[in-house]
């Protein structure tokens, strides 16, 4: 009765685990050999009681010293064989399984680096990390123990039962009695355990996120003296996790209880029946000893099934969690899918692009062009207005355009679309007439350099951090030029100059210093297209003026889009575009817009208020 849902559940767990095959495949020979060796070792373990029986019934009973010696020798040889086989099994899988774990982790890291940025917005990095660490460790343990031992113990149990049946079939049947109830319990248990295990693993991920945030936000927490609140949030979560773990433990305890009791009852029954048979003379004492010895030897394999199933279940959950990430479409595929979404338009667009790339020299097409660009975040609630709703903008080749708009008007979003960190909802962006979706991400990003609002430095030498914006051929001369543009001469005064380690595992630099390095990184490769998101916000006035002077040279022949909050930054650009209500509301020079656009004047009117303040 209970078997109907059971196989389905079984299969789905098994099916999940089967997805590990591609990673296990390269080491399959060793893994299978190891499993075979393990079975062999178990068989040897089962033969030892038989030798004991033979010894007791034969030479010992016959008082035959030579026979006893021979028996002991057999025992010794079997013992050696068993020990060596045990060791061999472990030796066979030690390196390969570490390799499977490592290769799965590398694949996860690889995939995560290539998943759309929108994916990362959605997923807390703690959840990703817990997949890359604890989940993969669970999987390695699964491959090392439960997988092999479910097989080995299964075979051991079958062989043991056959041996027992051969020795005495009535006793054998008595021993087999509890098999069905044990199996039913296991099936019920497995289903419940799966749910709780998944919950626990997810909660571990949440906990990881809190730990991470509490470190990244340490200045805020300290600044407001909120570490107690943070600690409370943490202890609430870890308390919940404890509760889940205890539920898991209770399930495990139940299965243990059942799996210990039932076989033991069967052995007791077999003992009683056996004693009666021996007394009747239907059975030799030696056979009974051997039989019970076998039965007791099987106790561990049977008992272990409970926790082996639990571990397998956790492994299945870990696999599920792992593939949740691995099944996400990577960026390129995402782009293709997006193009497919508006199929006919996409096809036409493609054809047009192809046609255009031939006549790309047509003046109106060159430069950076936004064509009716609409964008809403993929995870935005349905019905909410798009962030960008029909942006049309043309930045001519060599021209620099400032992008101005109120806080939250979508300026940063717009800049993120150019290197395709997000995919357009509709419309096109073209670089010299070529649709950005027609370029590979690598080519596109080689053409477009970005300085982000948040200047992130990686744990690497300062020089490398800057040079990562250039081709591999870039050398010290390029570095020097970029650093001088960004007025980042402070780098040479660092303890190890341009080799100074910065980033999370290095020297911490001030916001202004990081911003200048991010700027240097953007200009070092002399890109065709430059996107600067509020690049001078953290600089002091004098540095800002110097950077501006140097940037003017760079911008003279670079097509650039510069997000700006200040007149000083705006003045770097040839023209200004005002982003408002998801559209470009006005384009012109700074002075034109000051006159013609009230909104622009409002956004840039520090001048007036400054005078008022100054006049006080």
């Amino acid at each position: 009765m209970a078997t109907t849902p059971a196989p389905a559940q079984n299969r789905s767990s098994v099916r999940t685990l089967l997805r590990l095959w591609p990673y296990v495949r390269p080491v399959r020979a060793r893994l299978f050999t190891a499993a075979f060796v393990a079975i062999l070792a178990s068989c040897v373990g089962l033969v030892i009681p038989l030798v004991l029986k033979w010894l007791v019934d034969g030479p010992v009973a016959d008082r035959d010293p030579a026979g006893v010696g021979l028996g002991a020798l057999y025992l010794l040889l079997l013992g050696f064989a068993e020990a060596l086989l045990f060791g061999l099994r472990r030796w066979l899988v030690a390196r390969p399984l570490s390799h499977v774990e490592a290769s799965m982790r590398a694949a996860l890291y690889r995939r995560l680096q290539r998943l759309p940025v929108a994916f990362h917005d959605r997923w807390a990095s703690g959840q990703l990390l817990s997949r890359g660490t604890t989940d993969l460790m669970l999987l390695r343990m699964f491959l090392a123990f439960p997988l092999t031992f479910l097989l080995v113990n299964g075979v051991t149990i079958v062989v043991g039962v056959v041996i027992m049946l051969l020795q005495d079939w009535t006793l054998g049947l008595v021993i087999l009695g509890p098999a069905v109830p044990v199996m039913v319990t296991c099936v019920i248990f497995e289903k419940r355990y799966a749910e709780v295990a998944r919950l626990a693993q997810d909660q571990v991920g949440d906990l990881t996120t809190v730990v991470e945030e509490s470190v990244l936000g340490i200045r805020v927490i300290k600044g407001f003296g909120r570490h107690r609140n943070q600690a409370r949030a943490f202890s609430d979560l870890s308390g919940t996790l404890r509760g889940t773990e205890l539920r898991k433990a209770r399930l495990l305890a139940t299965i243990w209880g059942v799996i210990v009791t039932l076989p033991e009852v069967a052995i007791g029954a077999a003992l009683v029946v056996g004693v009666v048979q021996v007394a009747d003379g239907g059975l030799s004492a030696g056979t009974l000893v051997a039989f019970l010895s076998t039965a007791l030897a099987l106790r561990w394999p049977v008992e272990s099934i409970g926790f082996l199933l639990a571990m397998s279940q956790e492994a299945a959950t870990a696999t599920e969690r792992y593939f949740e990430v691995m099944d996400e479409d990577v960026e390129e595929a995402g782009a293709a899918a997006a193009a497919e979404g508006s199929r006919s338009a996409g096809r036409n667009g493609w054809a047009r692009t192809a046609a255009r790339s031939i006549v790309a020299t047509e003046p109106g097409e060159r430069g950076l062009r936004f064509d009716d660009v609409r964008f809403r975040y993929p995870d935005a609630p349905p019905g909410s207005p798009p962030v960008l709703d029909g942006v049309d903008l043309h930045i001519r080749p060599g021209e620099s355009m400032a992008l101005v708009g109120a806080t939250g008007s979508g300026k940063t979003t717009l800049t993120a679309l150019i290197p395709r960190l997000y995919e357009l909802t509709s419309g096109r962006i073209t670089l010299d007439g070529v649709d950005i979706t027609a370029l590979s991400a690598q080519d596109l990003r080689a053409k477009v350099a970005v300085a982000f609002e948040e200047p992130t430095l990686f744990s690497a030498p300062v020089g490398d951090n800057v040079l990562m914006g250039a081709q591999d051929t870039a050398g010290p001369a390029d570095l020097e030029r970029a650093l001088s543009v960004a007025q980042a001469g402070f780098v040479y005064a660092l303890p190890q100059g341009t080799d100074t380690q910065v980033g999370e595992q290095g020297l911490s630099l001030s916001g202004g210093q990081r911003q200048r390095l991010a700027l240097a990184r953007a200009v070092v490769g002399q890109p065709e297209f430059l996107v600067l998101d509020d690049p001078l916000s953290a600089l002091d006035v004098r540095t800002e003026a110097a950077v501006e002077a140097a940037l003017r040279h760079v911008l003279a022949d670079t097509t650039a889009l510069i997000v700006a909050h200040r007149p000083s930054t705006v003045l770097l650009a040839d023209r200004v575009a005002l982003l408002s209500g998801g559209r470009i509301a006005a384009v012109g020079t700074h002075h034109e817009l000051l006159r013609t656009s009230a909104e622009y004047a409002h956004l840039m009117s520090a001048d007036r208020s400054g005078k008022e303040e100054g006049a006080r």
Partner: protein
Amino acid sequence: MTAATTAPADQEPEDRPTDGDPFDRDVLPTPPGATAALLRSLLAPLRARVSVTTLLLLLQQAVVQAGPLLVAYAIDRAVPAFRAGDHGPLVVVAAGYLACALAAGGLQFAFVAAAARVSQDVLLDLRGRIFRHAQALSVDFHERYTSGRLISRSTTDVESLRELLDEGLQELVTVILSFVYISAMLLWLDLGLGGVALASFVPLYALVRLYQRRAGRVYRARSTAIAAVIVKFVETMNGIRPVRAFRREAVNDADFAVLNQRHERTNGDALLEMARYVTGSRLVANTAVAAIVLWGAYRVADGTLALGVLAAAVLYLRRLYDPIDRLGMFLNSYQSAAASLEKIAGLLAQTPSVPEPSAPRQLPPAGEHPGREVVFDGVRFGYRTGGEVLPRFDLTIPAGQTVAVVGSTGAGKSTLAKLLARFYDPSDGRVLLDGVDLRDLAVPELRRAVVMVTQEAFLFSGTVAENIAVGRPDAGREEIERAAKEIGAHDFISALPDGYDTDVRKRGGRISAGQRQLVAFARALLADPAVLILDEATSSLDIPGERAVQRAMATVLKGRTAVVIAHRLSTVEIADRVLVMEQGKIVEDGEPAELVAGTGRFADLHRAWRDSLA
């Protein structure tokens, strides 16, 4: 083997400039015995429950071990008795076995449940300790330790203790119990056989020690290796945008592969150590079994040993060595946990460089102004990287004054702010708030009085309202909204999908940098401090945003003492006083108008800024 484990340590000085720094090598100094002391202190409060759990396990084992005894009894007594028509002994056997079976199952259930409670309570305690301690450590510690390592300490390292508690401890108790119990049984059955069995423990013990030594080394290396993997992982995921935009994927893959492979190697080393141990211990055990059987069989043949005794002894013998693998598993989890605990103990042994006062003082009651007087009295400060940032610094800010601090990068402006917020303590001298040394103020008192808003406006996952409430957790929704309105953040927050209840998700991905700074300001307004420090806190705001902040400072925060570090001189103009800093010294000090009119540096700066406004 040895080469593999020492190699990474040897390479370190080449990769990293500061080879002597324990932070770089992820090995914080641990006082001797700290690891064991940590484990003890974790288990001490649970002593009673640990005892009960152990007792359950003892009983369970006793019941399980009764099995063979009943077998011996059945063969030696029940069979002849049954033959003689006496069913009594057989009934005893049957009842005994049934009772044992039920008791074994029941006790097993009780034990597993009890052990899980102990284990989970220890983990809860340990996780909490790591977290609280990390939170108590000062900002300069976090700047060096990296979030990845801290995550590693509270996830993978805690996980290995969990393995020890969940499986290891049970294994250990089971192993010791069955060793003791079975040895006793064997000795009771026959002194000679038992003696031989005990003798076999000598080589086993030697093996265990050898394994412990070797595995300890391997596991320490492994724990360091996984932490390095995590650090890289976290860094990449947090910087995914620049990673993408600068096509770092392939380079990162390669870097990650190196770290990942180092972990793979140490992991393999650990498994191989285990393989060696298992082989060795099995060899010893099986040899002992063969020897004992041989000897026993001769004695049965001699007639000096009963057949039933030998049969029982043989059954016990197999069981005597069965737990050897489990002992291996225990040692395995023990070594792994020891390596992790050592790292955790190293973290917990770090003392905050900004300690809480042992005898906190109260601030005097606020005067007519809500603001308080700030005094830097002969303050010196230098970072660990060397170089004195502030060479002897004196400054008095009267209560209620708004001071703007300007100067180029590295002039010491942020240091000034961090000292005032007590993120650091001065190496010499005192920072006084209404005459009270900041070091004498309890943290809650200090944080109520002094609030700092920085350029990096970090948002925690949770709603916008929750993020503002960081300023004052007991604030109601109305107060939160008022703060947001005063700073000009209400409009954009209301426009979010769920208004104030919108989840900012991961690091506020969908809220622009400027909006984040507004939220950070709303926090500060809500906190309503006596002293407000703004360190570049308006850098990403647009001009209307900046004006809103200035308005709020002139109205809501009127009368507070404020220290404003800003590059935008627009902010400076609301100041009562301007300080120009250079190389840790104040080079100009005066009212804005006065300085502008002069010929000093500020006048230059101001002219440059005017020009920039064009």
